[in-house]
């Protein structure tokens, strides 16, 4: 009833091509942005920032990155954790080497460095596909973790082998280090996630995105219409690496503050982001957000229910939490293999007609 597109005509191709061609969608999107930028920063506290919003936003960037590679270009990657570590260590080296340069420069720069590294590990994709490529990226994951453990230069020869983010500010507002306020952490992540989503959307709706999707759907046909498979795959790896690097940099500097590579960027991180992408929906920017929200919120929600509501011991709750989220993932994959984004699309299609049956 309230979700209507009648009377909503596109008179130019540009209008037809916009991200939200339906007026209602467009206003909803503006409303979400307004709440995110103008309301949440004023009411957020440490618990909500650290448990929910900051990890959600950072994982959303990582999920967008992996979605570009896996969802749009069809190249499976299990190296996300290692690639995030590249972003984290790059931003750490940059922060400590050039303390006077703004973090707003360091973080994208760390993204660019990661893009280079990921492109390098993407080279095998020119020869191998599917499971075999997944195994090759798995090798990248283990190699990168080993590298950051073994070479002391990366952690500035610190005795513990950890890296910890020094205090840095942007226009006088501290955004890293232990004295960071909750809203500042949230804001910096929100800015990056907004830009990342915009860029990802613009890339995926234009000719670059079509090249990626052509490679994903049928690489032989893609080549016959003039797509250079090597370029298409490597740009997907590079762009994906850029976003994952930014996510890694923020994850370390803003969220964790201090990190040890094996613990923070291990193989479980790769799988976590992959689950986000699959549950959210492959080949959908919205799906990246939905998946990240699902995987971040579910453990928080379950913990609150088990410990807070039912009063069970925390160790039991922690184990149950694994069982339930694992089970839910399986249920999800069976019932809706195209993810939350597909559920969202179906809901919208139904809403168009509601409450009339036809």
């Amino acid at each position, binding site marked *: 009833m309230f979700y209507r597109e009648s009377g909503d005509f596109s008179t130019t191709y540009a209008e037809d091509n916009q991200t939200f061609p339906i007026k209602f969608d467009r206003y909803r999107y503006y409303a979400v942005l307004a709440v995110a930028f103008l309301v949440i920063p004023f009411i957020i506290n440490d618990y909500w920032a650290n448990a929910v919003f900051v990890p959600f936003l950072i994982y959303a960037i990582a999920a967008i990155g992996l979605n570009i590679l896996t969802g749009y270009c069809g190249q499976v990657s299990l190296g996300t954790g290692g690639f995030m570590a590249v972003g984290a260590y790059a931003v750490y080296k940059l922060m400590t080497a050039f303390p006077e340069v703004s973090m707003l420069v360091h973080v994208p720069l760390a993204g660019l460095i990661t893009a280079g590294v990921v492109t390098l590990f993407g080279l095998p994709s020119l020869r191998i596909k599917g499971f075999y490529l997944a195994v090759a990226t798995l090798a990248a994951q283990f190699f990168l973790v080993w590298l950051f453990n073994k070479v002391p230069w990366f952690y500035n020869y610190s005795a513990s082998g950890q890296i910890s983010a020094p205090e840095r500010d942007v226009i006088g507002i501290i955004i890293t280090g232990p004295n960071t306020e909750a809203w500042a952490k949230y804001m910096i992540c929100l800015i990056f996630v907004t830009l990342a989503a915009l860029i990802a959307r613009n890339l995926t709706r234009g000719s670059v995105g*079509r090249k990626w999707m052509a490679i994903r759907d049928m690489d032989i046909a*893609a080549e016959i219409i003039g797509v250079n498979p090597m370029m298409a795959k490597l740009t997907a790896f590079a762009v994906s690496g850029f976003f994952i690097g930014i996510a890694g940099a923020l994850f370390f500097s803003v969220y964790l503050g201090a990190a040890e590579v094996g613990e923070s960027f291990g193989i479980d991180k790769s799988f976590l982001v992959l689950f986000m992408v699959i549950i959210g929906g492959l080949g959908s920017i919205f799906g990246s957000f939905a998946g990240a929200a699902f995987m971040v919120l579910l453990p928080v929600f379950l913990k609150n229910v088990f410990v807070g509501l039912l009063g069970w011991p925390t160790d039991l709750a922690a184990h149950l939490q694994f069982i339930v989220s694992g089970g839910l993932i399986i249920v999800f994959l069976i019932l809706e293999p195209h993810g939350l984004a597909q559920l969202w699309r179906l809901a919208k299609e139904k809403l168009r007609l509601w409450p009339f049956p036809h």
Partner: protein
Amino acid sequence: MNALTGGNYTTADGRKIGNTMMEMKNITLRFGGVVAIKDISFDINEGEIRAIIGPNGAGKSSMLNVISGFYNPQEGEVWFHGKKRPPMRPYQVARQGIARTFQNIALFEGMSVLDNVMTGRLTHMKAGMLSQMIWKGKAEAEETANREIVEKIIDFLEIQAIRKTPVGRLPYGLKKRVELARALAAEPKLLLLDEPMAGMNVEEKEDMSRFILSMNDEFGTTIALIEHDMGVVMDLSDRVVVMDYGKKIGDGTPDDVRNNQEVIDAYLGVAHD
């Protein structure tokens, strides 16, 4: 008019046939010990509809694959627009202005019809990565300009109604049409059609024939096609190459070919005594 040496004549229905566009010289293609194509030469003139026919396994599709760059022949030369073509990857061939469709439909199932046809414009879209990230400005203008061309082709092939439908949901006949639209969107100089009418009913075949003729007529597209329906081939094409077991056994106008004893033998079999 000499059908075999080709070039520069006017057909009975008044279409102008230009110079030789593509020339295959003594092509031999082997897969290990199997000889798929054996010393075949033929040419394609500008503006003509050229058919390649032959029994199953004759090497017709291999021939198209040689033209579109999937296979590089062991022997022989491919000349395009008067220049010898070095060994190329398929995407380089596409950028020279050669488009094709496949025997088994090769569409991008996860994308909408519109996006599929838009992929046909990829060789014409030049906006760089950075301007696409920003979108407003160059990238958007390019997208709109190409969309206009694509919409014309969508109109031409009468698939307006299914523009935004995901290709995976379409029936076979429409998929074939979308694939043709994608190939046509590239505005190719030479269009290769691999069995465009396979598996179609009479009406769909009529539609497809109409599209092929008006493509050739309106856009001046040169067309090389493989087809098993002899009625269609004889009606549509200006000249026909006949292959059998990797060898060329006939070449000429449909009438020449129809009366060629070797061709009749290949199709109907020959008595061994």
